[in-house]
């Protein structure tokens, strides 16, 4: 044990600041500070790994890890709740082709010459998220939306069960759209067509670099110009600073302290709310989770609020200016909650429960206060501590001072009597 070199080697690796490809040259990039699995060991999220059709992406203790066999289908990005993953070829927002007919979406395996004219192109339909399907419905203005499968899914590694991998997202968006009263003809449909040419489909999803690359800036420019060309080949590659992978540890830390944005959820709720409002319907209660805190068991540590990766749980400290009493409260915003379960695991007293669906439809989506505790100054050290229902009557010491007393008692009555 000598030099600084040894000392350096014991420090665990820093969390990368920005996008980093999960493997050199792989089509998948990860923004680690947005990944709720990286952020908290109490998060149970393994959505990307569970949905990976080839098993190349596995969610480990420290976050997602990419092995061999990634085909760039983008199914992992479609299910990520915080937009922490990006796959070459997928834009967050799809443009709407001009015209008045049906809007077709086709995968990259269909040869360019044989594709439906004006079709939107993505590497694989499985990489479409629910919010992207909802966005299509919203921006299509009543035009039918056709997700086209040309019989290639039967032997495609992106679809291990043989059906088009957009199925799950399609079923979910369909249920949501039905719940808010969208007519069937406006909901996206999966259409099975034979391959149009004699040569059939490409054997596998072509690499993004072989296609015309449209950068983020180019994409935005085209958006602003409302260009007709918007329709085809919307490419968003993993942002280019991914290659550098520079780990500015201090900045990464700052990002960890800020809540991540639940991007998929924000988009879903915004789109559904707009669509529902147009029909005078309310959002279904099943969209919202329910978090409850048992006031009898809560010790007011507020670990749940400190570790909530998306800021759905917030701690608020309030002081009554007239009485001088201070209060600690935990507030919950169901619109941000992605039901990752991190709060449930992190609560030191096991006082918190999360259920995936709200029961009361009227209040399901409304922010609310879950628990509030008064503070009392510690008789010994003067620091304020939360006065919970667990605190015994007449307790005047804070938990830290109680801990020190327990140590002294152990040392002087137990060990050295």
């Amino acid at each position, binding site marked *: 044990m000598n030099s600084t070199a040894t*000392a350096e080697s014991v420090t665990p690796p820093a969390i990368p600041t920005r996008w980093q490809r999960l493997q050199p040259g792989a089509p998948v990039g990860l923004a680690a500070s947005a990944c709720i699995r990286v952020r*908290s060991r109490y998060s149970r999220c393994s959505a990307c790994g569970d949905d990976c059709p080839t098993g190349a992406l596995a969610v480990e203790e420290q976050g997602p890890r990419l092995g061999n066999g990634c085909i760039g289908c983008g199914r992992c990005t479609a299910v990520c709740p915080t937009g922490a993953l990006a796959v070459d070829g997928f834009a967050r927002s799809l443009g709407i082709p001009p015209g008045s007919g049906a809007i077709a979406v086709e995968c990259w395996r269909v040869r360019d010459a044989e594709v439906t004219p004006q079709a939107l192109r993505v590497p694989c339909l499985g990489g479409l998220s629910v919010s992207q399907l909802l966005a299509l419905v919203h921006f299509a203005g009543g035009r039918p939306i056709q997700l086209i499968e040309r019989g290639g899914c039967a032997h495609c590694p992106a679809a291990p069960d043989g059906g088009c991998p957009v199925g799950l997202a399609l079923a979910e968006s369909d249920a949501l759209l039905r719940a808010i009263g969208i007519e069937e003809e406006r909901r996206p449909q999966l259409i099975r067509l034979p391959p149009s040419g004699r040569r059939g489909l490409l054997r596998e999803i072509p690499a993004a670099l072989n296609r015309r690359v449209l950068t983020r800036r180019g994409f935005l420019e085209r958006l602003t110009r409302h260009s007709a060309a918007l329709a085809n080949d919307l490419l968003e590659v993993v942002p280019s600073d991914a290659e550098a992978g520079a780990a500015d540890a201090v900045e990464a830390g700052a990002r960890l302290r800020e809540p991540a944005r639940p991007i998929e959820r924000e988009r879903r709720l915004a789109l559904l709310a707009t669509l529902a409002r147009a029909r005078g319907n309310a959002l279904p209660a099943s969209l919202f989770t329910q978090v409850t805190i048992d006031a009898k068991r809560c010790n007011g*540590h507020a670990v749940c609020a400190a570790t909530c990766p998306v800021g759905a749980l917030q701690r608020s400290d309030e002081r009554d200016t007239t009485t001088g009493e201070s209060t600690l409260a935990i507030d919950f915003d169901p619109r941000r909650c992605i039901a990752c379960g991190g709060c449930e695991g992190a609560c030191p007293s096991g006082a918190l429960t999360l259920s995936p669906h709200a029961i009361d439809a009227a209040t399901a989506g409304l922010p609310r206060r879950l628990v509030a505790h008064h503070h009392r100054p510690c008789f010994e*050290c003067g620091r304020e501590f939360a006065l919970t229902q667990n605190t015994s009557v007449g307790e005047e010491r804070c938990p*830290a001072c109680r*801990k020190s007393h*327990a140590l002294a008692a152990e040392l002087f*009555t137990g060990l050295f009597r």
Partner: protein
Amino acid sequence: MAKWGMVIDLDKCTGCQACTTACGMENNTLPGENWQDVLYYNVGTYPNTTMKWFPRPCMHCEDPSCVHVCPTRATYKTEDGAVLIDWNKCIGCKYCMIACPYGVRFYTDEKPLLQPALQDIFPSNGSRHTWNPPYKSPHEDWTKGIGIQPRGVVSKCTFCYHKVSRAPAGVADLDEDDPNTKEFTPACVRTCAPKARYFGDLDNPNSRVNKLIQDKRGVRLLEHTGNKPQVYYLGEHGTVPEFTRPKS
């Protein structure tokens, strides 16, 4: 690789708080954040009362509960036995402070107890540091929780990791009386006037700390928690005055 440990002889400790002061100077801690503290208790009922004390550093447990609960894995155990905090990853949730049975972790952004607060006298100059003291540790390393503490994180005793990690390889003890190891000895050990503290390699059977633990039956605090501290306490049977529980 050494496994650093400390032995504190309660028979020798005079409760002078020199260790607490040395620690505060070495590590730029603020008042209230005593990484190393001597705790005093008045025990017994009048007129039969005694004052008792014991020094309390971080125990640098073999199986630390703080490391197990940290949601961001900011706190970790090094190969040579120290428990450190990566201030870049710490989000200040204080779960480790709840989990630590010894109460040796401190939140850096706590409301100051003493007025005027040192943070106001030496305000930090725009950086994330809690304050800007006249003396600054030259070894600042946020990945190990060394240096002036930033805001909103948890801090703790590092066993003076900036010193002990530079000790020559294979050394059995870090002793302030040995010129070869003096510079690598933790501040509290080096300053202890009655020499109540010893610091060395618990894995080395010939180290002085191991001999003391064996010969004088060293004990660890709160063994039932399974944390297995690497700080041992010594005290001859009967030399510490009788401790009586206060009547409740």
